[in-house]
């Protein structure tokens, strides 16, 4: 049976004389591939004005054109260039994904540390987080947007709220484990103040799992933003985000499927790249944290 094979983590694949990068690639190909795809998309988003036309320019005479030399991805029902819109859409998705990952990791870290270290906070906070996690994230975000109104900022906040409890849970579980270790006990016994124990002894242990979790949060945020926009409860419709482009293509799907397929394809590739990066980092940073996720 194949399980008899000893897991070498690719160490045996290492060869003398090969560059460190090649070694890393041999051991964690998903990190390199996912990171490379993501890198390309980030560059495309940055240089969008150089490689794409005005995503908002309307040309009624050129409505619903299929793919050709001028309209690489076809045109939509107002004669706008789907290629330019898709390239600009990457900016929205990456901005939302990155912002949600950073914000929810930051708040999740603080709340999780407090819950894991201060017992009376733990009981209250975790009950609240359990309740928050019982509400399906997409629905909670939809409800928040419908109340607060559609804007990029509100979308980011609305996606952060259902994501934070997941980060809190992770940080809390790491904190609970670390606080029982002898070196923390030693720090307590020599009178280190709590904030010092948290910052110097506990936070460093949360970094690796947090990086991994942040990539998953990012992937999920990109998808939820697209879902919200697609359903009409997300980024304002005049902004070309992938979900908005797809939402506008819905009525024309039978005659102009490219309006949905190109942004949808880009969305799938982006999420795939982020997930590959996350899976690879999880194995690469610390094989033990794979169990906690």
């Amino acid at each position, binding site marked *: 049976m194949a399980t008899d094979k000893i897991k070498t983590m690719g160490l045996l694949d290492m060869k003398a004389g090969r560059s460190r990068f090649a070694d890393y690639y041999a051991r964690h190909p998903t990190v390199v591939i996912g990171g490379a795809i993501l890198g390309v998309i980030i560059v495309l988003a940055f240089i969008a004005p150089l490689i794409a036309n005005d995503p908002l320019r309307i040309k009624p005479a050129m409505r619903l054109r299929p793919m050709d030399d001028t309209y690489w991805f076809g045109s939509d029902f107002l004669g706008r260039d789907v290629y330019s819109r898709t390239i600009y859409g990457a900016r929205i998705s990456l901005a939302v994904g990155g912002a949600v990952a950073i914000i929810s990791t930051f708040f999740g870290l603080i709340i999780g540390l407090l819950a894991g270290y201060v017992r009376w906070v733990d009981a209250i906070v975790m009950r*609240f987080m359990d309740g928050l996690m019982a509400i399906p994230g997409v629905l909670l975000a*939809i409800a*928040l947007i*419908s109340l607060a109104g559609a804007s990029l900022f509100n979308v980011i906040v609305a996606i952060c709220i259902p994501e934070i409890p997941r980060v809190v849970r992770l940080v809390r579980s790491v904190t609970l484990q670390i606080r029982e270790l002898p070196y923390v006990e030693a720090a307590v016994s020599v009178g280190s103040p709590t904030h010092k124990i948290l910052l110097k002894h506990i936070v460093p242990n949360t970094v690796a799992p947090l990086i991994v979790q942040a990539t998953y949060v990012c992937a999920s945020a990109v998808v939820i933003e*697209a*879902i919200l926009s697609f359903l009409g*409860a997300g980024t304002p419709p005049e902004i070309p985000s992938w979900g908005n482009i797809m939402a506008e293509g819905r009525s024309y799907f039978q005659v102009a499927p490219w309006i949905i397929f190109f942004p949808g394809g880009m969305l799938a590739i982006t999420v795939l790249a982020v997930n590959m990066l996350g899976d690879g980092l999880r194995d690469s940073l610390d094989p033990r944290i794979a169990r906690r996720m």
Partner: protein
Amino acid sequence: MYGYIFRRLLATIPVMLIVALVVFLLLHLTPGDPAAIIAGDYARPEDIERIRKNLGLDRPLYVQFFSWLGRVLSGDLGVSIFSDLPVSKLIGQRLEPTIALSISTIIFAVLVAIPLGTIAAYKAGTLVDRAVMAFAVLGFSVPVFVIGYVLMYFFSLKLGWFPVQGYKPIGEGFWPFLRSITLPTLALGIVYVALIARITRASVLEILTEDYIRTAKAKGLDDANLLVRHALRNAAVPIVTIIGIGVALLIGGVVVTESVFNIPGLGRLTIDAVLRRDYPIIQGVILVFSGIYVFVNLFIDILYTFLDPRIRY
């Protein structure tokens, strides 16, 4: 064991209370006057005043919460602002397609994912394993509406095997029902298949390193029996757990899938309510969905005690 079930039942009460509190506070913590938010941009001052009166928004917050909670507990989810019909009735009307789609998706996902994951673990490290794992990552990454449109393009528009959109209730015959629900089930199910297959593979792989597996092999048990009776049975707890956790994913996906395939279920009700700012409906749907999620996971926790007699807290 009954003590455990009872304690577990009790533990759902605070969770549901918090859900109710969050759902209630959503409207009140959002910046701005709730009555004005509900009334929308074109409301006249007297409309806003009428809504404020109707919803009791002029009373203190805690009074509002407890009177609202009391009504919810007696099954009264309020009245739709747009249609003036009771929310519970509107939800009841839309429940069937959503439940049909969810159940067919769970059945499809379990039937496909568990064999896939088991085979991947059995053939760990081979091409089969890699293919299953690649599919799992891919299935987890392609959003449900993208899969939905791809399936619709090939199987409905190009091949004409299935209706493009719409839903036929099971009362109108099993065959039309099945045809209308096949593509939505596939679209919604793929992410779920990916999730369950991944966990199944990981759990079976871990069990396969146990001593009793080697013993079973040594006594000459064939691989099929070994996998199903020894490995899969012992891997049941994590697999069932992920099925329960995945219900959250399923609920989010249902809303989108119903929108893509034009299915008149709870998801469509929610989206229509969002577009009309019909807040009592949104509140009601979130409560119902969260309740379903909490109770599915309660059921699964209780199921543990039957699956694994060692778990008797």
